[in-house]
């Protein structure tokens, strides 16, 4: 009772705080120009997590996060959650009085509907599979209470339904979807976030507008509209920034300084991505089956030079495959000096000779650009150049990413190297991505190591966080000591901003830009 009182008092305070700036109305517009908006899909369950940054203004998550990716009671529909002692029943307490943009009240039924839909057959979200595997039932004992019952004890439920991962935790309006049809969201999305859908022109922009009333997440939204523009060419984006046509633009590491000198603020997402190279399975018939060869290919790269030149100093050498650094504090992992790859072509040559490839061998490198990695082809060419110097003849296969992905999934080019700028993420995200690259039933598996498979499997059913941490640490060490990939660099991602966004922390949540901070008027 006492607890409730204090909560009421707190709410009162909060509402007072919100009431004061009510006089301030949303004003002006914020324009974000990016090279791509990936799928441009407006349905969270059909689009996938790469569209999170524009979807999360329109939708609320069940569990919120801080800008640095810690689960937060302030940022989500659930203001409190707890597990049963055996970690199989997870109870979420929902905020009251939250309304969808069409006026419907958000209740536990909507939460149940949303999670069920995210796990459904049409869903193409990143982690639906894991949820399907774990969730037994979803109960709605009260309009403000949801209980998720799992098949086995687990600790990952809140994270999987939060804003740190994909879009499974976005809450959709059940009644709206049931009356207008399951396809309605792609045309007219309705959520409960601080901005509601205004307009979409495919290939051009997605525009959202502020909700009329103050929103619990951000108060009175600062800008009347927020527009996400697709501007593929960098020169065009920079010119738009200079002319005031855009307020936040994606800039390349090469041109960042030039834009800074023109008087714009550069915001950097530090270690935003980890560039991982891997070889297409199955490689048991290729020279790569020999651990020494994999080590040699790693030692041949001068990561410092790559970071300093190709990435213009906006990168740090990496050394552990899928060593996503935002997870390190969570799992208490440190990259010790013995894990760092030296640049040692001579030792590389010796290792190759020891493995019986003293005269080198030929191999393929797929060369493609990726959103956020315009240096992709240059990097591929550079890797080929380094390998050349230890006698490995690398042939470039320049295709677009979909073509590489097909070869990778179909396993039609065993031993060929591919790469990706893996978005940095926390421990649960790291676990999820490692699972994708290792689990033998996945098309995306790029290595075969029973020891890792066993550890990955163990994490799901482990309820002791310390043991989970130890398992993930061991997985990373094993990936590194077996040289099961080609980690290249940590990549910083710069964004250039006008005065409107001069103060802004783009945060460290994957596929998010923390625009909440920019649109928020909450003290």
């Amino acid at each position: 009772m006492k607890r409730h009182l204090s909560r009421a008092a707190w709410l009162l305070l909060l509402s007072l705080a919100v009431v004061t700036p009510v006089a301030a109305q949303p004003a002006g517009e914020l324009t974000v120009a990016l090279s791509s908006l990936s799928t441009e899909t407006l349905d969270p369950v059909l689009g996938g997590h790469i569209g999170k940054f524009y979807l999360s203004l329109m939708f609320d998550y069940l569990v919120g996060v801080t800008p640095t990716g810690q689960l937060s009671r302030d940022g989500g529909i659930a203001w409190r959650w707890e597990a049963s002692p055996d970690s199989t029943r997870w109870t979420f307490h929902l905020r009251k009085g939250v309304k969808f943009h069409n006026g419907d009240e958000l209740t536990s039924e909507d939460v149940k509907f949303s999670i069920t839909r995210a796990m459904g057959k049409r869903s193409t979200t990143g982690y639906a599979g894991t949820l399907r595997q774990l969730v037994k039932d979803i109960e709605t004992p009260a309009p403000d209470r949801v209980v998720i019952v799992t098949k086995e004890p687990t600790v990952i439920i809140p994270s999987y339904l939060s804003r740190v991962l994909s879009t499974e935790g976005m809450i959709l309006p059940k009644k709206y979807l049931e009356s207008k049809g399951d396809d309605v969201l792609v045309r007219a999305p309705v959520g409960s976030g601080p901005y509601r859908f205004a307009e979409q022109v495919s290939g051009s922009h997605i525009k959202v507008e502020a909700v009329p009333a103050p929103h619990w997440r951000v108060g009175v939204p600062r800008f009347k509209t927020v527009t996400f523009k697709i501007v593929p060419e960098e020169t065009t984006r920079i010119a738009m920034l200079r002319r005031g046509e855009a307020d936040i633009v994606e800039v390349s590491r090469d041109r960042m300084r030039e834009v800074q000198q023109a008087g714009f603020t550069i915001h950097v997402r530090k270690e935003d991505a980890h560039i991982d190279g891997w070889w297409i399975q199955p490689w048991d018939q290729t020279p790569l089956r020999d651990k020494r060869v994999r080590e040699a290919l790693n030692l041949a790269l001068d990561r410092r030079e790559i970071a300093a030149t190709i990435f213009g100093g906006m990168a740090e050498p990496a050394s552990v495959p899928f060593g996503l650094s935002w997870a390190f504090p969570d799992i208490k992992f440190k990259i010790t000096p013995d894990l760092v790859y030296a640049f040692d072509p001579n030792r590389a040559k010796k290792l190759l000779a020891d493995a019986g490839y003293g005269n080198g061998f030929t191999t393929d490198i797929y060369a493609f650009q990726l959103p956020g990695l315009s240096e992709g082809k240059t990097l591929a060419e550079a890797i080929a150049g380094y390998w050349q110097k230890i006698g490995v003849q690398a042939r470039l296969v320049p295709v677009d990413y979909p073509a590489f992905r097909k070869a990778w999934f179909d396993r039609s080019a065993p031993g060929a190297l591919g790469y990706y700028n893996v978005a940095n993420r926390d421990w649960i995200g790291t676990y999820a991505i490692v699972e994708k690259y290792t689990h033998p039933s996945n098309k995306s598996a790029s290595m075969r190591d029973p020891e890792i498979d066993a550890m990955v499997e163990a994490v799901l059913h482990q309820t002791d966080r310390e043991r989970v941490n130890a398992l993930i640490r061991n997985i990373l060490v094993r990936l590194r000591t077996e040289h099961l990939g080609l980690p290249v660099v940590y990549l910083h991602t710069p964004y250039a901003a006008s005065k409107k966004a001069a103060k802004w922390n783009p945060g460290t949540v994957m596929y998010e830009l923390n625009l909440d901070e920019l649109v928020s008027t909450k003290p």
Partner: protein
Amino acid sequence: MTGPMRRLPVGPALVIVLFVLVAIFADVLSPDDPYEQHLRARFTPPAWLAGGSWQHPLGTDRLGRDLLSRIIYGTRVSLAAGVVTVAVSALAGAGIGLLAGYHRGRVGGVLMRATDATLAFPIILLALVLAVTMGPRFLNVVIAIAVILWARYARVIYGEVVSLMERDFITMARAMGCSALRIIAVHLFPNTAHTLIVLVSLQIGYVIIVEAALSFLGAGIPPPTPAWGSMVAEGREFVTSAWWVSFFPGVAILLVVLAFNLFGDWLRDVLDPKLRQL
């Protein structure tokens, strides 16, 4: 020397000869290895600018490769792409145009429908689809562009043949019982050859430009092969920071395409003034 011959465009002709020579003697002329990368020396400016050196007269690209050497070797690649593509499409297109024009019935109908369908296919898209499908390699890019270009030859030659077929000498040849092959080879082909020559000269430049556009879209002749188009496409990202990377190959393209077009223009005036729409 008659009138038009006097007006031989000396400048363009010289440019063409010069670049052909460069292409032939690329190995001798090139000061450096066009493939050798020196990452630490990337974006070295041209020799006459601060920070430049005569080791790399035109500077280096994003991987620190010598730009001049790449342009010199690129001459070979780009001219070869232009010539081979045009040759392949001219042969195929002219053959189909001649055949369709001679057999105007069912055979011609089918051939010309296929030609129209190809012409109606958005040019760059078709090349893009082909390049994506087959993977962008030199030969595939050539094939992709040729697949579009043949149809132009087919349509123009077809038009020529159709009007030739109405002429008396063909009617007479047919009346005298000449075989189809003989009529096509002896009477029709020589009378369309001038058109063909003009088209070929005009389209070499076009191919080089299309290849550049394809490179921009990620489907041109791929790196590390030095081709002018892909060099300009790669360098466009650095127009403000390292302008030389795209500028010099751009100038090479400009000169060659301009030369071929002006030369082709003159050829048309001399050989075939009626062929004006191309």
